[in-house]
C-alpha cells in the first residue's frame, strides 16, 4: 500500500518514491518520442542553428585588420588618435613590414576591401602601396614615414590612420552601427553623412509596407475564409482549389505576371484607358513603386492569411450565431460580438505568418518594387552578392531577426500567443 504523509513523498508498494517510478515508467515513451523527432532535430541543429550562430558571429567579427596587420595594430595602440598628429616612425615601419608580408601572401586586398566599407579610397590605397612594398628592403629603406607618404599621399592623412585604429579590434559594433546609419569613429559613434543614410529608411519602409500588406490581406481574406467555412462542401472545395492555385505556379512567374498587369502599357492601364476612366497621358504608375510591391505581395501572401483563418472559422459552430440571434441580436451584432471575437485567433495566426514572411521578402520587391518599393532584404542581398560586406549583411539580418522576435513578444503580451490557432 502506498500512503500519504505530509512530510514524506508518496511511495510505491516496494518503497521507491512514486515520482521516481513514474519517471522510469515514462522513460521508454520519452526515448521513443525523442528518436522519432531526432532526424529533424539533427537537421535543424546542423543547418538552421549553425546558420544563425554564424550570422550572429559574422555581425561582430572583425579579425581581418589585426590578423593581416598585427604589428601595426600593436604599434597604433600607443598612438593618440585624437591628438591631431600623424603617428610616429614606429607605426610606419611596423606597417611597412605588415603590408610587405601581406602583399607577398596576397592578403592586402582583403584588408583594403574591409576598410573600404568604412572609408572610400582605402581599397586603392592598399592596392597601390602593396604593389610598391613588395620591392622594399625593410632594413635598408628605413625610415618609412616619408617613404610611405611619397608612395601615396593618403598616408599623410590622419583620417586613414584613425580608420585603421578604430577598426583594428577583434570584435566590432561597427556593422550594427552601420545598420542604423551610424558609424564608428575615434571620437565614438556618430551619424553617417546624409547621402549615406539609407538603412533606417529601408527598415521603416519594410515595417510599414509589411503592415499595409498584412492589413490588406486581412481585409481580403476574411470574407473568403468565411465563405470557405460556410459554403456546402462541394463549393467550398472548389473555392479552396482556387485559393491554393497560386501555390501551383512558381513565385517568379506570378510576380512577372503582375509586371505585365501593372506596367504603364499593361493590362490594367489599357483597360482603364479603354473604359475612359483615365487619360492616355495620365496612365497610372502601378509598378516600380511601393504600390506595386503592396499589390503583388498581398496577392502572393493571401493564402497564408486565408488558410489559418479558414481553419479557425471552420471550428466556430454556426449555433453561436443562431443563439445570438435568438437572444435578440441583429445580424451585425451577432457577427461583431459573437463571431468575430472567436475568429480573432485565426486573424492573429494569419497576420503573424504574413507579416513575418513579408518582412523578409526578397524576390517580389526586387522585381516590382523599383527604387521606392524595395525592402531591407534587397539591401542585405546587395551586401552579400555585390558589395561583399557580409558583416553588414549579417548585422542587418540579425536586426531583422530581433525585430521579428520583439513583435512576436509584443503580440504575446497584447493578444496572447495561446490565442493563435492554426487549426480547430
Amino acid at each position, binding site marked *: 500500500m502506498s500512503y500519504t504523509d505530509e512530510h514524506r513523498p508518496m511511495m510505491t508498494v516496494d518503497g521507491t518514491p512514486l515520482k521516481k517510478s513514474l519517471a522510469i515508467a515514462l522513460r521508454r515513451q520519452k526515448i521513443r518520442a525523442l528518436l522519432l523527432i531526432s532526424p529533424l532535430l539533427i537537421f535543424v541543429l546542423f543547418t538552421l542553428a549553425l546558420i544563425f550562430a554564424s550570422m550572429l558571429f559574422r555581425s561582430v567579427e572583425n579579425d581581418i585588420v589585426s590578423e593581416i596587420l598585427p604589428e601595426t595594430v600593436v604599434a597604433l595602440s600607443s598612438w593618440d588618435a585624437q591628438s591631431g598628429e600623424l603617428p610616429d616612425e614606429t607605426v610606419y615601419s611596423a606597417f611597412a613590414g605588415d603590408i610587405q608580408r601581406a602583399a607577398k601572401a596576397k592578403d592586402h586586398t582583403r584588408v583594403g576591401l574591409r576598410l573600404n566599407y568604412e572609408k572610400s579610397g582605402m581599397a586603392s590605397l592598399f592596392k597601390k602601396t602593396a604593389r610598391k612594398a613588395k620591392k622594399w628592403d625593410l632594413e635598408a629603406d628605413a625610415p618609412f614615414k616619408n617613404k610611405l607618404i611619397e608612395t601615396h599621399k593618403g598616408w599623410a592623412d590622419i583620417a586613414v590612420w584613425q580608420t585603421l585604429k578604430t577598426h583594428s579590434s577583434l570584435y566590432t559594433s561597427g556593422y550594427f552601427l552601420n545598420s542604423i546609419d551610424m558609424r564608428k569613429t575615434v571620437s565614438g559613434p556618430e551619424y553617417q553623412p546624409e547621402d549615406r543614410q539609407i538603412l533606417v529608411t529601408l527598415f521603416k519602409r519594410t515595417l510599414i509596407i509589411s503592415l499595409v500588406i498584412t492589413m490588406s490581406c486581412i481585409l481580403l481574406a476574411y470574407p473568403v475564409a468565411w465563405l470557405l467555412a460556410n459554403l456546402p462542401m462541394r463549393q467550398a472545395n472548389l473555392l479552396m482549389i482556387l485559393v491554393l492555385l497560386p501555390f501551383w505556379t512558381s513565385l517568379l512567374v506570378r510576380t512577372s505576371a503582375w509586371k505585365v498587369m501593372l506596367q504603364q502599357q499593361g493590362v490594367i492601364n489599357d483597360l482603364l484607358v479603354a473604359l475612359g476612366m483615365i487619360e492616355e497621358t495620365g496612365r497610372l504608375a502601378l509598378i516600380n513603386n511601393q504600390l506595386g510591391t503592396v499589390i503583388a505581395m498581398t496577392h502572393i501572401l493571401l493564402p497564408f492569411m486565408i488558410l489559418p483563418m479558414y481553419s479557425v472559422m471552420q471550428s466556430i*459552430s454556426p*449555433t*453561436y450565431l*443562431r*443563439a*445570438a*440571434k*435568438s*437572444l*435578440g*441580436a*441583429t*445580424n451585425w*451584432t*451577432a457577427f461583431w*460580438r*459573437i463571431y468575430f*471575437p*472567436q475568429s480573432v485567433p485565426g486573424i492573429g495566426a494569419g497576420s503573424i505568418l504574413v507579416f513575418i514572411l513579408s518582412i523578409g521578402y526578397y524576390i517580389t520587391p526586387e522585381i516590382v518594387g523599383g527604387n521606392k518599393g524595395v525592402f531591407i532584404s534587397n539591401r542585405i542581398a546587395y551586401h552579400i552578392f555585390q558589395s561583399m560586406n557580409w558583416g553588414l549583411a549579417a548585422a542587418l539580418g540579425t536586426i531583422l531577426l530581433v525585430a521579428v522576435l520583439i513583435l512576436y513578444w509584443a503580440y504575446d503580451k497584447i493578444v496572447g500567443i495561446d490565442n493563435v490557432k492554426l487549426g480547430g
Partner: protein
Amino acid sequence: MVKYGEYDLAEAQAKAFVEFQRVQKSYDGEVLVVKDLSLAIPRGEFLTLLGPSGSGKTTCLMMLAGFETATHGDIILDGVSINNIAPHKRGIGMVFQNYALFPHMTVAENLAFPLEVRKFSKSERDTKVKRALEMVQMGQFGGRRPAQLSGGQQQRVALARALLTNPKLVLMDEPLGALDKQLREHMQFEIKRIANNLGITVVYVTHDQTEALTMSDRVAVFDDGRIQQLAPPDELYESPKNSFVAQFIGENNTLEGIVKEITNGVALVQLDGGGLIDCNPVNVSKAGERTRVSIRPERVEFNKERFQPGAHTLTAEVLEFIYMGDIFRTRLRVAGNDNFIVKTRNAPDQVRLVPGAKIDIGWLPSDCRALDA
C-alpha cells in the same frame, strides 16, 4: 400566469398560441423534409417533438425559430404570421443542443448579452443577471468561462439565458442530449418545474422517448416528415395509432398476420406463425387485410387463473430469463417470433419462468392492437 393543469385544453386550442398551417419544407427542391404539417400549440403547453433523426422535427423547430424558411405554408405566433419576421425580432427563447454558450464571454456576460442588445442599463442588467443565476442555483459562477463549467452547469446557464428576457415561447433542441443519465433525469424535472412556474410555452425536440413521456403535456411523434400521432403521453403509450408509434414508443412485441373477421369491435387475427388471437382493430377495417399486432411486454399474462374466459391463448416456449432487479424480463418464442418479451414485476409471489418450459400466454383483447402492416 398559466399553471400546468389549470388551463382548459379545448379553450386553449381554440386560440392557439403557435400554429403551423400546412407547412412544407424542402432543402433541395426534390425531397420534402416536412410534408404538409399542421399543428396547433395552446399557450402554456409543453409540447415535445419526438422522432428518429431525419424525421423533420428539428427542421420544424428551426422554422419556428426563423433559422429556416418554410417552403410553403404559414407559421403563426400569437396571431401573427412570422414567415417574414427575422429571428431576432421573434422574441423566442432558445436552448441549443450543445448549449451554445459564447466561449469568449463569462457566464455573467453570456447572460447579460440579450439584455445588452436590448439596451438595458448596466444596473438593470446586473440585477437581472444576478436573479437569473440564482434561479438556476448558479449564484457564485458568474465570473467563470463556460469551459470551466460541467455539462449540467452549462445547461443551467443556457436555460437561464434563454429565459432572461421573459419570452412567451421557448424552444429546446435536444438540450439534455450531452448529459449522463442521472443528471438528465434531474434536469428533466428542473426544466419542467421552471416551465410550469413561469407559465411559458415550450416546444421541445428530443429523440429520447422516456424524456418525451416524462416531461410533456403532449407529444408529437414525427416520422418521414409527418406527425404520426399527436397525443398526451399516456394515450401515446397505451393507444398507439399505428405500428411506427407502437414500435417507437416503449418496448413492444409484434406479431404479423391476416385479419380473419371483425365482429363487435374485436378482430380475429390468424398469425403467420400459427395461432389465432383476439385484437383491438385500430387501423384495420375488413377481413383479409394484413396486420401487425402489437402487445406491450407488461400486458402479457401467463397465469391461467387470470385469463379471460373464452379468449384465445397461444403456446410459448421460454428461451431466456433475465433478472433485472425491479422486474423480470423473459424472452419467449411465440408464433415463430423469438423475440417476444414478457415483463413481470418482482413481487414475492411472482413466478420465475425456467428456460425450456412450455407455457400458455394470453392478454386482454383491448391491449392487443391490430395495426397497419
